[in-house]
């Protein structure tokens, strides 16, 4: 007899979702997390007195609508703000506004406007196709399994329905980079870089890196699954995590916080439980990890407990991000050149043109600090004033092109980078520096420490074709089962990958139930 049917490592969104689906089927599930609150990357933290920010994930835009309904997250307390317009800030104040399929400002002409509508239409058709794949387990190509055949048939049908031209386009662009695709479609530099920003944020790439079209389509697919637009969670991301925890508990799962798993226990040839930092051992029929693959296999299981080919795959798995978070406590509302006060609540981007983005990649690659960055900014206190003391505001920004470990070290590097970022912001919001009462820079290695993500990678491993779909995280451990008996994956390191989507957790639970593994 084991203590539980399943132990889920990590009470992040995927862990909680997996737990909910399993518990709803009557399985006895325990979710363990090292942190003192549920939600993982969906977390809110007070970074300065009275100032609360979503300290890891910032926007909710890709979360699968089906899961919201299946788990009745609205009843569990999930409240979303209004969908945001994206505004890419220009130094002259003539900003580019992206609202649905419509773009304006920054000198975009009618040709670019038409091209943008066509581009969005094309991306949606690709995203729709990818949705088929994302909502099922990744099909294996050679094993001739009927479930997989069905998925492939659906995919084949979807490809057929795309039409010859679109299909040709998809095959052509999916392996290339976003830089070339942008240049093919558009002439306006601001437009190109605003789209390219979405392709590189959260990765270790620049716009000319291969796989950036795939990472863009991944995001677009998420938006197709989410159907919510880009929104902020009221109460901060932590409230989202909390709603998932409430739903999981309502389904019958047990959540145990402040309990770091230090090891996955293997008895003879299968995984039989976990060891906690307290020394306690808990047994289960299955251990399902929502931690990233490097953490799961290298740190918790240990290379000596798996076959060598698998250890090699784990060691070669790329999991590093060049994306940081900037948190500013502001004594008052900042003013951005050319933005009305009402527009400050929208999603604000700052990005150099694509060549500048590519140039910014170089210092990051060579462990230097860059003097150019991209910003994806939210001032959450406008829609959710409770997050800061009355009359005060917070600004949070997702900042890309930050090295994982700069040569100068983070002790010296952080103050330097912080003042660099603030001076970049000053270019668009003159006087913002004077409003700052507290600031915090969370670099990729901080995410590794605080949220357990190896390399600070949100996606739990680079989103690239060789680490995607039927190869995610790596051959031999796909379809949520791993090469180690009794150990499953349900996190972003499993198909379809990261971003607050929830599908890895949902798909993993469905697969485990379908296999009768419990």
């Amino acid at each position, binding site marked *: 007899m084991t203590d539980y049917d399943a132990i889920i490592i990590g009470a992040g969104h995927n862990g909680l979702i997996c737990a909910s689906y399993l518990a709803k089927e009557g399985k006895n599930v325990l979710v363990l997390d090292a942190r003192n609150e549920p939600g993982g990357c969906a977390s809110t933290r007070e970074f300065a007195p009275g100032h609360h920010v979503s300290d890891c994930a910032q926007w909710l835009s890709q979360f699968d609508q089906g899961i919201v309904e299946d788990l009745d997250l609205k009843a569990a307390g999930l409240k979303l703000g209004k969908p945001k317009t994206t505004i890419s800030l220009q130094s002259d104040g003539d900003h580019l506004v992206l609202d649905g399929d419509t773009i304006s400002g920054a000198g975009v002409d009618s040709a670019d406007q038409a091209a943008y509508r066509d581009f969005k239409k094309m991306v949606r058709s690709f995203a729709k196709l990818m949705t088929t794949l994302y909502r099922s387990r990744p099909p294996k190509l050679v094993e001739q399994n009927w479930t997989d055949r069905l998925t492939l048939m659906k995919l084949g049908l979807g490809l057929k329905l795309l039409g010859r031209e679109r299909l040709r386009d998809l095959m052509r662009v999916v392996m290339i980079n976003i830089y070339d695709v942008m240049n093919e479609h558009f002439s306006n530099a601001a437009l190109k870089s605003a789209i390219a920003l979405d392709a590189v944020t959260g990765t270790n790439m620049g716009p000319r890196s291969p796989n950036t079209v795939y990472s863009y389509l991944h995001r677009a697919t998420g938006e197709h699954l989410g159907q919510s637009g880009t929104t902020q969670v009221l109460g901060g991301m932590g409230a989202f995590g909390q709603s998932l925890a409430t739903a999981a508990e309502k389904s019958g799962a047990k959540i145990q916080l402040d309990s770091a798993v230090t090891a996955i226990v*293997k008895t*003879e*040839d299968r995984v039989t439980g976990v060891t906690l930092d307290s020394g306690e051992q808990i047994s289960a029929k299955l251990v399902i990890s929502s931690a990233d693959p490097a953490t799961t296999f290298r740190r918790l299981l*240990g*290379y*000596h*407990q*798996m*076959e*060598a*080919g*698998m*250890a*090699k795959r784990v*060691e070669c798995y790329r999991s590093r991000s060049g994306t940081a978070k900037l948190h500013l406590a502001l004594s008052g509302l900042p003013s951005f050149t050319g933005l009305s006060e009402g527009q400050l609540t929208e999603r604000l981007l700052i990005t150099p043109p694509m060549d500048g983005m590519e140039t910014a990649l170089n210092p990051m690659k060579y462990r230097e600090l860059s003097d150019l960055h991209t910003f994806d900014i939210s001032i959450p206190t406008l829609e959710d004033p409770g997050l800061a003391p009355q009359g005060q505001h917070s600004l949070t920004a997702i900042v890309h092109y930050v090295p994982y470990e700069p040569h100068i070290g983070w002790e010296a590097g952080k103050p330097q980078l912080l003042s660099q970022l603030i001076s970049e912001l000053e270019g668009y919001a003159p006087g913002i520096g004077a409003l700052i009462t507290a600031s915090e820079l969370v670099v990729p290695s901080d995410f590794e420490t605080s949220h357990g993500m190896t390399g600070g990678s949100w996606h739990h491993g680079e989103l690239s074709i060789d680490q995607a779909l039927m190869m995610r995280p790596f051959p*031999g451990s796909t379809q949520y089962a791993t*090469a180690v*008996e009794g150990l499953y994956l349900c996190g972003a390191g499993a198909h379809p990958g990261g971003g607050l989507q929830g599908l890895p957790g949902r798909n993993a639970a469905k697969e485990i139930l379908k296999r009768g593994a419990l």
Partner: protein
Amino acid sequence: MSYVSRDTMLLTTPFHSRVEAMCDLNDWGNWMGYTTPNAYFDVELEYFAVRSTTGVFDLSPMNKYRVTGPDAQRYLDRLITRDVSKIGVDRVGYAIWCDDNGQVMDDGTIFRLGEQDYRICSYQRADDWFAWNTLGFDVTIENESESIAGLAVQGPTSCTVLTLLGCTDLNQLKPFGIAHYSFEGRPLMVSRTGFTGDLGYEVWVPPESAEALWDQLFELGRDYLIKPIGSYALELARIEAGFLQANVDFMPAEEVVRVGRTRSPFELGLGWLVDFKKPLFNGRSALLKEQQQGSRYRFAMLDVEGNKPAEHSFILKGDKQVGTVTSAAWCPTAKANIAYAQIEMPHGAVGDELVAEIYYQRELHWTRLLAPCKVIDAPIFKSPKRWQTPAPPH
């Protein structure tokens, strides 16, 4: 280790000056990048030296890896399919290792030199694979291929000759045992191992001792009709004795590029080397699955009618082609026409009667021969001397 007299693309072994001097036929081959003799003077006479007196084979090109450190045994236990703890200190074990798909990468011997001190003697270069295998283990791997020279000294008079060389009480050494001596002030290690199926030893020395070792062996062995032997004679002996050869009887899994061309231990008749009692080793889960679901092929030793070696033959069951031959030879001592074949399941069980489709040529005239053959259960050459301790006097 290279004794290089001029620039060549192939390396030479530490024995090369002596080998070259004795290689009357000047018939050379490339063995894993080394110049080695195919034959010295006459393949059959060389073969009969192994069977009747003593044959000496330069096996320096074998790859040797030293495995040391607190996790050495655990490391090897994960690497190879058999239970390493059963190999005692100063003992040798035959072993195979697989990839994660349970496909054989290579075979070799594991020498246990101390508690946590092993040497792997492998056919393939395996630096990369052995290095990847160190992940998670406190172990050091050193490629010592070039710092050890080796000779196989095989045959009924081999013990006597080596005893004259100073290997005292060598006749007490059990099969797969290791004994340590010194030779001209340097270490000399003898293992009772070999590839010929008869009484025989392998002698390991630092490269600096190589030429002197060769000289003294042939000097002391003259009365015992010691002869050098090349790869062709060894090939005959090993087929007769039932040993598989990597790259001949199976493709090392890492070298295979075409789907389905690798083989599992079960498909090579090496299931006895797979110990499922061990909870983890490379290929275990794939092999367990194969054990439940069945193998694709069966390794079969065939006794073929007639005296035409069934080299490269198709194997037929009725009209259907069910397999191919990987090694074949007319074996002079056993006086049998032996072939190793990979046979598609379910054919090829012991006693199965098959047909070898043999093509042979005499004076540009090709003949097709359909030779009946039968699957036998063990090598046809069995020398009791191989297993006797003390080693029998000749």
